[in-house]
């Protein structure tokens, strides 16, 4: 994602498809994580959402990354429900909006992608009022976005930067295990939420890992 590495609409479509694939493959695990500290639906929620997203994109692929991400976000909001639907939906819609504000071109630079992810994170934070440490998807998304920014600032290659972001997301997800939940359904468990990975953080790690997979092709 250094200069010279530009991401077109097809790249974003591939990211979303790869995310859909890995959510489908990880559906059971996500649901199991949610069964432990939530209501056992995170896997099916996201799978239903990404299946709908892939179908929507198949019908008519938008012609800019900004438009594509907006469709992704809107579809997630319309199809997922639960806490994760509006949150992920907002994240993608905010990414789309950020790219649109940056000029809505057919090609996005690594820096622009990073700015878009920062906008997505800000959207999630605003809507869900979760801080880092609250044991939510924010605990995977925030360090991922930070890692991406740092790698780019340090002049890393795009796929290296994506790898750093994905690794940070996975570590962030794992780091939720000892946390006590303060937002979302897991917060009802109080102390008993400790010792389990947050399902939304785990799915965020899948989505960031998908980004790296596609960037590394």
């Amino acid at each position, binding site marked *: 994602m250094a200069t010279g590495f530009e991401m077109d609409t097809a790249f974003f479509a591939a990211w979303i498809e790869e995310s859909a694939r890995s959510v489908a493959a990880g559906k059971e695990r996500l649901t199991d994580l949610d069964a432990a500290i939530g209501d056992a639906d995170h896997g099916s929620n996201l799978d239903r959402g990404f299946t709908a997203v892939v179908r929507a994109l198949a019908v008519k692929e938008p012609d800019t990354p900004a438009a594509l991400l907006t469709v992704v976000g809107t579809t997630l909001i319309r199809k997922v429900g*639960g806490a994760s639907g509006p949150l992920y939906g907002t994240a993608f819609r905010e990414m789309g909006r950020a790219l649109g504000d940056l000029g809505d071109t057919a090609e996005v630079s690594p820096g622009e992608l990073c700015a878009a992810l920062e906008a997505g994170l800000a959207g999630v934070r605003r809507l869900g009022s979760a801080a880092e440490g609250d044991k939510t998807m924010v605990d995977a998304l925030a360090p991922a976005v930070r890692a991406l920014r740092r790698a780019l600032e340090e002049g890393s290659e795009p796929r290296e930067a994506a790898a750093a972001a994905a690794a940070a997301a996975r570590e962030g997800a794992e780091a939720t295990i000892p946390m006590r939940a303060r937002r979302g359904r897991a917060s009802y468990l109080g102390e008993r939420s400790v010792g389990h990975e947050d399902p939304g953080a785990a799915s965020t790690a899948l989505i960031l890992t998908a980004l790296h997979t596609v960037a590394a092709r």
Partner: protein
Amino acid sequence: MKKLINGVESVVPDALRGIAAAHPGLRVDVENQIVFRDSGPRPGKVGLVSGGGSGHEPLHAGFVGYGMLDAACPGEIFTSPVPDQMIEATTAVDGGAGVLHIVKNYTGDVLNFQLAAELSAEEGVEVASVLVDDDVAVRDSLHTAGRRGTGATVFVEKIAGAAAESGAPLAEVARVAGTVNARSRSFGVALSACTTPAAGRPTFALGDTEVELGIGIHGEPGRARSAMRPAAELVRVAMDALHEDLPLSGDVLVMVNGMGATPLIELYVAFAEVSAYLAEKGVTAARSLVGDYVTSLDMQGFSITVCLLDDELVRLWDAPVETPALRWGR
């Protein structure tokens, strides 16, 4: 997992077809997952819309009808509905006097209803919301998601429904709904976990001599695991928790609610203990419900909800209601 279903994916639409066939007083939009009163909006009457994950039947669809909800939006099993459903329902039931959203306090329900309220307002419907958060098992604080909404939802829907039916304006219906919530508390106990069709196995494992205290309605484990005890003692744990949070006095409305797989005979056993507990405290169970009202699929267990009554609330509770699950006076 054995369930009387056709497939994991089709449970909600299949059940909606059943609701449509069973209740001629309802109009069911199976595709968009909305259950309406067949009569449509009444000009000048505030519309009442609620919704939430499926798996809690009769909540909410079973409370659509005269004197209660105008529309219910069922989501997937244990998953809040999406804004599209709520917007469609909201605009459809608006009779010009605005619409009240009755929202159980779960992050998902709150976020989706919030988006729906904003978008409905953009379409010109005046929307107010009441948040139901009655579950004392959850410690409430600014730094958490707050208490869950459970059994009090039935009270809020009934009483706000009566207020709306009587022609009260939106602000007034919202006020009385908020009052009911403020005066209501719930506590739940599970003897077994439930199995969602998607998960295919119980959401937690309880030993043969264990119970979960302070459970919610989504198969989440409770706050604490404890030893199984006689009904009288389990009821006392629940009632003490309610009384500690909101001292009980005067006349109360009580619901002993089954979680879905609790035989009615056991709920009556529990109600006898509730009534004895209240009598001990000099409190009168002036009105009551015993049965399955807010369930959690096939969970075995019960919840108790108590609302401190005043004359206004009694009058609105007693007002006629005609829905699949609650019916009197008509």
